[in-house]
């Protein structure tokens, strides 16, 4: 069985294309009997079909994702850098160094702060706006579109807009000055503001995503449930606590995991808004630190170890969050 299939599949592609019509139960040039014989769903194990349907995908995925991950994990255990002629294996020395390195720990902390702010604030505002827009009609569908617009803009575009507004001589500060504020704050250059400005711009961009997911969740709540509750005398808040919020459990899961994954890898916004500053790493995230170490400082060994830590943290954090929220979904 397997053999006969294998021998045919070589001509499969070419033969199929050139054949004009469906030759009803006639043997084909390649010897296939297209009849109702038992091979049609059992032939899926054939190597030829695998080669045609899956191998291109698997090859590209391996070359562009899997192999690079393995390379990163290996290079993270070497001391490779541009200024050193010979590279040697140093096992976990890079990891040990990074755990004690003030700069790297700071970039880790920045990433956590930004992620927490973006996940919490985007969920909160997204839910509030979804509840506000939870009505039929032209106005509401227009407003939904408005909130979604930044989602389809490039992070570069959003960051350049944010920068032109929040820069020291930007549009916000020049407006403040003309209103009589003597020395408006440096929203992106003052260490006590910068990370919140960056987070705020990211919340603004991702908000529409959370709104759409929550609106879809709200649309899935049967109207009878809420009507019944309100007939039983439940106020709006009780109704929200007892029905709406539990019914949005899977929307919360989707939003939280998506926001976590996309915030944790943030690079573009940092590059455009602050270039890692103020100072050496006021707002530098782990992803930014990895790119800077790898390409500007030309230290692939150390950068790869950072990337390794990033990989482990991202996987652990998103899997844990997913499991916790999904268990919550079941409990509710």
């Amino acid at each position, binding site marked *: 069985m397997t053999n006969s299939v294998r021998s045919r599949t070589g001509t499969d592609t070419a033969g199929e294309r050139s054949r004009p019509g469906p030759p009803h139960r006639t043997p084909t040039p390649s010897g296939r009997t297209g009849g109702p014989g038992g091979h049609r769903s059992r032939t899926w194990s054939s190597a030829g079909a695998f080669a045609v349907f899956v191998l291109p995908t698997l090859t590209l995925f391996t070359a562009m*994702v899997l192999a690079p*991950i393995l390379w990163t994990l290996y290079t993270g255990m070497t001391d490779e850098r541009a200024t050193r002629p010979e590279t040697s294996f140093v096992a976990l020395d890079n990891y040990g160094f990074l755990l004690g390195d003030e700069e790297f720990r700071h970039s880790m902390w920045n990433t956590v702060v930004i992620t927490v702010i973006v996940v919490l604030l985007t969920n909160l505002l997204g839910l509030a706006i979804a509840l506000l827009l939870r009505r039929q009609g032209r106005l509401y569908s227009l407003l939904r579109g408005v909130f979604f617009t930044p989602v389809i803009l490039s992070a*570069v575009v959003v960051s350049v807009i944010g920068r032109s507004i929040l820069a020291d001589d930007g549009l916000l500060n020049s407006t403040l000055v003309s209103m009589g504020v003597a020395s408006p704050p440096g929203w992106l250059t003052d260490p006590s503001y910068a990370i919140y400005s960056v987070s705020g711009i990211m919340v*603004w961009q991702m908000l529409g995503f959370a709104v759409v997911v929550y609106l879809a969740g709200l649309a899935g709540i049967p109207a009878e449930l809420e009507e019944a509750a309100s007939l039983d005398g439940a106020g709006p808040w009780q109704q929200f606590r007892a029905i709406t919020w539990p019914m949005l459990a899977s929307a919360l899961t989707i939003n939280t995991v998506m926001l976590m994954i996309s915030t944790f890898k943030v690079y573009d916004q940092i590059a455009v808004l602050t270039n890692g500053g103020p100072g050496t790493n006021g707002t530098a995230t782990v992803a930014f630190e990895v790119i800077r170490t790898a390409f500007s400082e030309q230290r692939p060994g150390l950068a790869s170890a950072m990337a390794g830590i990033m990989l482990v943290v991202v996987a652990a954090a998103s899997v844990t969050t997913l499991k916790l929220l999904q268990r919550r979904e079941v409990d509710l």
Partner: protein
Amino acid sequence: MKSRTSWVRPLLAIAVAAVFCLPLYVALVNVFKPSTDVVASPLALPAPPALDNIEHVLSRPDGLFWYGLANSVILTTLTILITTVLAAMSAYHLVRSGRWWSRAVLGVMLAGLMIPPAVIILPITRILDAVGLMHTMPGAVLVDVGYYLPFAVFVFMGFVRSVPRELEEAAAVDGAGRFRTFWQVVFPLLRPASASVLIFLGVWVWNDFLTPLLVLGPGAGNTVTVGIFRSIGPYQQDFGAVFAFMLLATLPVLVFYLALQKHFVRGLTGGATKG
């Protein structure tokens, strides 16, 4: 009681949306103003609207916009078409075969969904260097296709399960081979999934910054999104010109999105209502 407060919701909704829109309004309205007016009165409407900024971008001597546009169109089109076809084929085969190793391949690919680009971009540049595709368009396409395949396979997976097996069996009875069955029976049925994948990837690839910045590199020119970054100096003053560049760079993807919007939101919310 209820009717007396019924104006609160629309009014509040409009007010919140207006505040939310303010940055977009500032960026859009100042495209049509000379730079002196931008700083003096950023919120004022352009009266009369001036097209100087747009013309300036279109006639830049370095051609930053036009080369970027061409690169973006080529990179995005090739990437989304190749990814869609490859992902549909492999998702179909992997889901239908149902073998343990098919599930293993799917599992590994889904884990690839959350890999941050920063983790793999350095080795990717090495691999491209080794095969002579660094700083070339084919190289950039391969990188993007490889990176976005897990997402596309993930979207197709769910849809393949909804295609009735009877249709494929009927096609087989009629003598269609596996490849032909896929192209003429299954692939057309996967159209909603293909639309979602095309739109998502179209927007993502167009908007991508890090990968083209490092992979396409300076030699072959770059995408229009990287062009935005290049067009702003360290001390950006000429807001009007920058906003004009961004508007022109965003228009194609905006039109693309609006034309296919329905599918986009449908694809996005597909998972939200299942739970």
